[in-house]
């Protein structure tokens, strides 16, 4: 088991998801050309600040009980929801991604400064790109798994959902060695830079 580090992830800009996150409703929201140009300029600027990095780690499952997941490493996770999600899986894939600190500095500067409009757009771009980076990592592992006649679950599960407590993020942070991609974790188990995420994905034979 070795963590795979991705020092630079390049993804197509998830424009639809960014607009959706900002509340755009197709066929309802009306944007004039000037505003659209302004927003797209902000999106382009945000994308230039985002520096996507990621990590992935496959870990065999020892066993899955109704309320607890046992990893082959000896670690275990208490969560009935996660256990249900991983039912039938032989392994799990831990994934993590970050948009880097430069984009967070820009968001902070704009929100606390005098360009909140650009700040919220950058925030949306960074969030969606960080999420898309996890899709990218999953896509890569799916390709690698194909030759083993295995595949990932379509969904992923993050700490903080349901009974999969946020405290588990610390374990995931350590396993994924996220410090290597410039991510730290605070005493409340929040990843810094803020636009950083982790998740668990199941591997089906």
């Amino acid at each position, binding site marked *: 088991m070795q963590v795979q580090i991705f020092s630079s992830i390049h993804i197509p800009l998830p424009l639809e998801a960014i607009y959706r996150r900002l509340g755009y*409703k197709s066929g309802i929201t009306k944007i004039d050309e000037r505003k659209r140009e302004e927003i797209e300029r902000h999106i382009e600027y945000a994308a230039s600040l985002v520096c996507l990095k990621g990590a992935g780690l496959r870990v065999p499952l020892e066993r899955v009980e109704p309320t607890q997941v046992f990893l082959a490493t000896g670690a275990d996770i208490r969560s009935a929801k996660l256990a249900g999600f991983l039912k039938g899986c032989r392994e799990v894939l831990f994934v993590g991604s970050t948009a880097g600190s430069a984009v967070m500095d820009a968001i902070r500067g704009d929100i606390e400064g005098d360009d909140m409009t650009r700040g919220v757009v950058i925030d949306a771009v960074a969030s969606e790109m960080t999420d898309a980076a996890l899709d990218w990592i999953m896509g890569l592992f799916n390709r690698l798994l194909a030759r083993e006649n295995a595949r990932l679950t379509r969904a992923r599960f993050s700490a903080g959902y349901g009974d999969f407590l946020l405290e588990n993020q610390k374990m995931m942070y350590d396993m994924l060695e996220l410090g290597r991609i410039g991510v730290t974790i605070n005493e409340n188990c929040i990843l810094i830079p803020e636009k950083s995420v982790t998740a668990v994905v199941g591997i089906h034979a």
Partner: protein
Amino acid sequence: MLLKETIRERIIIMDGATGTELQKKGMPAGVCPEIWCLDNPDIIGAVHAGYRDAGADIVTASTFGANRIKLNQYGTYDVVRVNRDLALLARGAVGAGILVGGDIGSTGRFVRPFGDLKFEDAIEIYKEQVRGLLEGGVDLFLIETMMDIQETRAALIAVKELTDTFTSVTMTYEAHGRTLNGTDPVTALITLQSLGADAVGCNCSTGPEEMLELIEAMKPWATVPLVAKPNAGMPELIDGATIFTMGADTFASFGTRFASRGANLLGGCCGTTPEYIRKLKEAVAGVKPVQPMRASISAVSSARSSVILEGKRTLSIVGERINPTGKKALQQELREGRMSLVRTMAKEQEHRGASLLDVNVGMPGIDEKETMLGAIGNLSVTSDLPLVIDSSNIDVIEAALRLYPGRALINSISGERARIEKLLPVAAKYGAMFILLPLAGGDIPETAEKRKKIIEDVFEKAAALGFTKSDIVIDGLVMAASSDFKAPMETLKTIEWSSDVFKANTIVGLSNVSFGMPERTWLNAAFLAMAVSKGLTMAIANPGVEELMNAKLAGDVLAGRDRDASRYIHHFSHVSPKVKQKEASSHKTPQDEVSQAILEGNREDIEQRLSGAMDSGMDAQKIVDGIMIPAITEVGALFDRKEYFLPQLIASAETMKKGIAFLEPWLRDTTLNKKPKGRIIIATVQGDVHDIGKNIVALMLRNHGFEVVDLGKNVPAETIIQEAVRLKPSVIGLSALMTTTMAGMKEIVELAQLKSLDCRFMVGGAVVTKAYAESIGAHYARDGVEAVRVAETLTA
């Protein structure tokens, strides 16, 4: 069969899928396929023989994952033996008269600068595999299903440094037409064919229909045969299993279309079987292959984009900024081993319209090679632009070319003996283009005639190593007009001859012409326009100089390179959009214009429009009450109806804020007499560092006349209560984005009750619901607009 000759005569048929065939024949999930094949030689032998019997010219040894990284995961360490034995097994299964390809796939790790695997380690890992395959007697190498251009380069370099055996390289592309790592097929082609691949193409990932487009895109630029090995259609997930649904007849029917679009080697990937290959062979029997359309190409590439330097095209600007000469901050940074300025300069130049980036890090007191490699690593992930490797040190250039994940342009190779003898072979090995600098014998040739002689001499030596004129860019050798007024004309003559007679691309280091002169920009711009008229194709310049870039745009139009002047018109139509705006709004009253500025979120013009409204005699307070408040209320309504989305709401709110600030001196008297609607304390609860939503709410509340005291984010309950006791707000607004921190809201409400505080609570945030709010005795606000409504109700 002599592969290189046969490719010219007919379509070469490769085999189909191995993995899916083995799975059908009982290979269990989770095993190492290579070891399983060695343990089950009859099964893999039957797969190989099946493809031979179907008519394949090439069968692929089952060594796709037989590299150190993959095998070690299964506890196997004798990489050479595994590769040798699998190659021998394939040979034994198919006998003589058919080619056996050594299959090389991804290690699954990404190589620096895109991952954590060192580039030289990747080359060594692949060399180990190549040695085993050579021992096993393979006839060719098939590097395939690659996702990362840098790993692909490592594999190709590994093969080429051990053997000159025919090597086909295919990458796998996503639905959006790029590899997972962002490389498009033309860029991959330019990089790989220049690095020595004997055939390039694509395999896996898509069905034949989608792959046709990739082949079609590559063909015009290919100097080598093209390879297509599609899946049996796009995979579908049926009952939890991945199924390829395209039948053999349909698959084979694409054979002639692939051939006519330019594919020279055809085979199958996932889901295909010997039946597919048999029918494919029948479909293309007698079809004449389309040969590569060119022997060479003027093109450079990065990891994710390419620049074709052929045909009648606009002038390419090579950004010159990444050079420490005369830049103290950059010098300091390079000395400290940092690269942030290099990255910033790259992005700025890209944004300003550069097509390539010159990279020169030569300066005293640093390790130039290490610095150059650091710059390449950083730039390869920061910018999509191809790089020009600029150094006087041959070792630095060699190291840079080895690492650079694309086809670079070398700046430069002159007629000096050392450059020719040492650098030309290096450039040839890595397939780089180079700038030919017409200098020799330590002298600067003053006339174009002397320069032509050097150009021809250097080219003769380069041609002996396989270079063509397409691989060369001639430097016109720009000298300062201030020291010799004839010098610019000699440069122009050199450019004209190189372009019209020698038929090569040309370049100038533009700013040299104005050295020692005042107002250099005009000389540079004028000289650029003159050089373009003589056929100049590239200029090393600072794209941040607007006059220069405008002269380039104009020169492209006047030289007939910007068809229909579309780039020129597009550029200048975006430069002055305000003109249109003013025309459009010229019939509105000043009051309408203020209202419109808020509705449109026009922060740039609000002050000017407010001045207009006041000049028309309107009182400031009336402007606020009668125009601005109704306008921002209308914005809220538009947001509620989803006709506006968040950026529009915020832009309008910021316009309002800016407008109020502008009017403040005139409002002061009336404001003193006018009480705010109410005081609101607002905070993000302890443990939560997310505060954008809270800041938006604060902005909206202030715009609607509330006094807002923002305590910030991650605020302890005690602090909020202490401030509430001190400030006696009408409302406390709390925000939380996470389920774990949401509980803090309840604690604060309870603490307030304990302290008998006379105030109401308003809560919101991504995870907060109306039901939760009510359960803790608070009021819920979904967003900033609703927060204003709730606050108005609570303070009424």
